[in-house]
């Protein structure tokens, strides 16, 4: 049985509400989804929460999966969950006193902050958000350019060009960081 057949079987089990199928699905996708959230947020705790939220949401939403690419469906939900998290963060930020926020924004990252995040994480944050998410989505979701362009509702040439430029820039940033060390 190849991976595609195995996934179809697991998906069918999840649709029936089989807990063993959900367990297998989690084993299959936990690493990739966690990586996706980690690379977007840069925080382990946040990634833990988002991964839990994603799979709990899947239990409720599985009935709405009407076939097609399960991968695309899963990462679209993951992406929505991440943007919900960002919106929530922004709401919280607005509630913080302006002065405190200003002081915090001027505070350089601590050693602990840096230790939490690796070099790649720091360089990804230097890219514009859309490009960073595109690269992370492609890598962790293992999407083809065709699938990515469909998900983003843009021409495949545009997606290809953005990924190419993003990867080239990221490599440049990483090499520059290495040269500093």
């Amino acid at each position, binding site marked *: 049985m190849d991976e595609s057949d195995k996934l179809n079987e697991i998906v069918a089990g999840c649709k029936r*509400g089989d*807990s063993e199928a*959900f*367990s297998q699905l*989690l*084993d299959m996708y*936990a*690493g990739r989804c*966690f*990586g996706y959230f*980690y*690379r977007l947020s840069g925080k*382990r705790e946040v*990634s*833990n929460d988002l*991964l*839990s939220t994603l*799979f*709990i949401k899947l*239990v*409720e939403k599985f009935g709405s999966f009407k076939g097609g690419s399960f*991968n695309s469906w899963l990462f679209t939900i993951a992406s929505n969950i991440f943007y919900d998290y960002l919106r929530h963060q922004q709401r919280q930020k607005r509630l913080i006193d302006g002065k405190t926020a200003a002081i915090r924004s001027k505070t350089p990252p601590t050693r602990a902050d840096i230790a939490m995040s*690796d*070099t*790649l994480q720091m360089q990804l944050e230097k890219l514009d958000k859309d490009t960073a998410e595109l*690269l992370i989505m*492609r*890598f*962790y979701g*293992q*999407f*083809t*350019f*065709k699938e990515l362009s469909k998900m983003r509702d843009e021409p*495949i*040439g545009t997606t*290809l*060009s953005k*990924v*190419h430029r*993003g*990867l*080239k820039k*990221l*490599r440049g940033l*990483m090499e520059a960081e290495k040269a500093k060390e």
Partner: protein
Amino acid sequence: MDKNTENLTELVTRFYDEPEIAQVVDEIAAGDELLGRCRAPEPDSGLIAAIKGQINARLMLRERRIFHPIIQRVAVAACLMIIALIGMKLLTPTQPVAPGPAMAALNRIWADDSDPLSEGDMQFALLTAEVDEIDDSILRIRMDEWETDSESAVSELEMEIADINTDFWKG
């Protein structure tokens, strides 16, 4: 098909000119290789176990949400059926068998021992039987079939009738 199996060169050829194609393909491959080297950390096994526990709890809750209304509906339907059956049993008019006069009298007599009316009926029946017996005796005496002293027999019968009458009116 995932990104590892798509034909990147073929795709790049559609959008880039000849001298750039190989370079673009190499740069994309190098970028992918870089991301592959710097893998994100893996989730803790404890976290995975906790999520599986949450999923199981959700599934059980969902099952209960699905089956609870069904059980409720079945219980309500069963109650309604029982009520309907009882109602049918009580409200369906039974065909009464019209008893004849003799049967009616007998029913009245034997229906209830504690009924004072039935008790009166019983006494009435006994009295009638005794009166009949006395009439029969008087008839036999008059026909000279009684083998005793006729004078005393008649007076004895009259006394007996007087006794019975007294007893009857005593109740």
